C-alpha cells in the first residue's frame, strides 16, 4: 500500500513540478475564468444593480466559471503529455494504471482548487456580493473533487479521439450535471444565509457521487488507456 501511494505521489509530484516550470495550465485556467467572470458581468448589466438579483444568478454563474475553467485544465493535462510523446512513457512506468489515474486526478484537483481560490474573491468583487461563508469550502471542495475524478478519466478518453478538445466538454458536462445542480443549489442556499440543515442533503449527495466516481474510474482507467 505504501508503495502504491508512493507511485501516486510520484505522478502527482511530476505534474506539479512540470506546472511550476511552465505555468501553462494554471495561467490558462485562471485567465479563462477571469474572462468568463467579466463576460458574465457584461452580459448581465442590469442584474448587477440589485443585490437580490445578484443572489439569484451569482452562485450559478460561479459554478459555470468553475466548470468551464476546469475543463480547460483537464484537457491540457493529457494533451500536453500526448503531444510531447510522454504519455507512452507514463503508461510504460512500472506502476498500476490506477496509480497513474490517481496521481493525475490529484494534480488536476490541485490546479482547479487553486484557480477557484483565486477567482472566487474576484467574482465577489465584480458582482459586489459577499462570497465569504466558511461552509462554502466543503461544497466547493467536494464538487471540484467530482469534477477532477470524472474529468481526468474523460480527458484520458478524449485525448485519443479525433475531436479531442471539443469532445471532453461534451462528455464531461453531461455527466457532471447532477453535481452542478446540487452544488449550485447548495451555494445559493449558503450565500443567502440559509441554515446548514438546508444543504446537508446536497453535501451528502455530492459525497456519494464522489465515492462512486472515484471507484469506477480507478477500475476503468486501464480499459481506456490500453493500446
Amino acid at each position, binding site marked *: 500500500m505504501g508503495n502504491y501511494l508512493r507511485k501516486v505521489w510520484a505522478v502527482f509530484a511530476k505534474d506539479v513540478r512540470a506546472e511550476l516550470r511552465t505555468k501553462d495550465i494554471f495561467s490558462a485556467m485562471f485567465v479563462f475564468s477571469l474572462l468568463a467572470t467579466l463576460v458574465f458581468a457584461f452580459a448581465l448589466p442590469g442584474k448587477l444593480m440589485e443585490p437580490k438579483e445578484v443572489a439569484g444568478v451569482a452562485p450559478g454563474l460561479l459554478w459555470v466559471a468553475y466548470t468551464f475553467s476546469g475543463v480547460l485544465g483537464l484537457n491540457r493535462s493529457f494533451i500536453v503529455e500526448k503531444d510531447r510523446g510522454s504519455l507512452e512513457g507514463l503508461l510504460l512506468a512500472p506502476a498500476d494504471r490506477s496509480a497513474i489515474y490517481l496521481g493525475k486526478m490529484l494534480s488536476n484537483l490541485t490546479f482547479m482548487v487553486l484557480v477557484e481560490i483565486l477567482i472566487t474573491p474576484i467574482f465577489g468583487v465584480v458582482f459586489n456580493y459577499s462570497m465569504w461563508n466558511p461552509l462554502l469550502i466543503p461544497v466547493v471542495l467536494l464538487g471540484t473533487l467530482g469534477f477532477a475524478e*470524472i474529468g481526468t*478519466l474523460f480527458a484520458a*478518453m478524449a485525448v*485519443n*479521439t*479525433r*475531436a479531442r478538445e471539443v*469532445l471532453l466538454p*461534451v*462528455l464531461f458536462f*453531461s*455527466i457532471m*450535471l*447532477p*453535481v452542478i*445542480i*446540487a452544488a449550485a*443549489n447548495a451555494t445559493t442556499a449558503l450565500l443567502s444565509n440559509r441554515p446548514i440543515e438546508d444543504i446537508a442533503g*446536497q453535501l451528502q*449527495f455530492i459525497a*456519494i*457521487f464522489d465515492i*462512486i*466516481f472515484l471507484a*469506477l*474510474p480507478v477500475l*476503468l482507467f486501464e*480499459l*481506456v488507456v*490500453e493500446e
Partner: protein
Amino acid sequence: MATAIKYTRPTKGLGLSNVLFWATVFSWPISLIFVLMAGDDVNLKYSQRIFYYHLPANIMCFLSFMIYFIGGIAYWRTRNRKWDIVMVAGLELGVFWAVIGIITGAIWARYAWGAFWTWDPRLTTVSIMMVVYISGVMLRSSVEDPTRKAALTAAFGIIGFVNVPLVYFSTRWFPKGEHPIIFGGDSGTPVGLEGFMFLTLGVCFVAVGLLFGWMLLARIRLGQMHEELQSRRMALEGMENE
C-alpha cells in the same frame, strides 16, 4: 470467416427477425384499434391516448440503455468484440426511443398541462439522460481504431448508466412538477387505469416491444455485416500488398 458469413446472410422463412417483422406489421394496426376503442380519460379526455405509446417507448428506451450497460460490462470483462455490436445497438436504439418518448410526452404535456415542457424531475432526468447518450454517440464517431472505439464506448456506457439514478436523485432540488406516476409511487397526479385501458396498454406494449426486438436484431446484424466488411477489406488490402 465461415461463421461470420452465416450470420450475415439475410434470413429467409421463419427466421426470428422475419417473425418479429411480420408480427410488428400486424400488431401495430391492432394496437391502434385498441387505442381508439379505449374510453376517454375523465380529466385528460382524448389526449390521454398517446400515453399508450408514450409509456412503452420510455420503457424500451430504458431497456436499450440497460443492454448498452450490460454490453459495456461484458466488453470490459472479456474484451470480446462481439459485445461492441451489442453496445452500439443499445446506444443507438436508446437514443431513438428517448426521442420518441420525449416527443410523445411533449405533445401530451401541451394538452394536459398547457406547456410542451416543464422541469419536472422525470422530464429533467430523461433530458439529461438523452444528452449523455447523444454525447456517447459523438464519442464513438470520433474514434477510428475499432478496439479503442469499443473500449471507450464500454467505459462511457458504464459511467453513463451508473449516473442515471444520480441524475434522478439530484432533480429533487428542482421545483416539483406534475408528471403522473402510473405504477407505485405516492406523488404526482394519479392516472386511473381500469379494465380495458390495462388491456390496451398491454397490447401496445406487445406492439412496441415487437418493433423494438426487430430493430435490435436488425441493428446487431448491421453491426456484424459492418464488422465483416471491415475484415474483408483488410484481407484484400493485405493481398494487394503481397
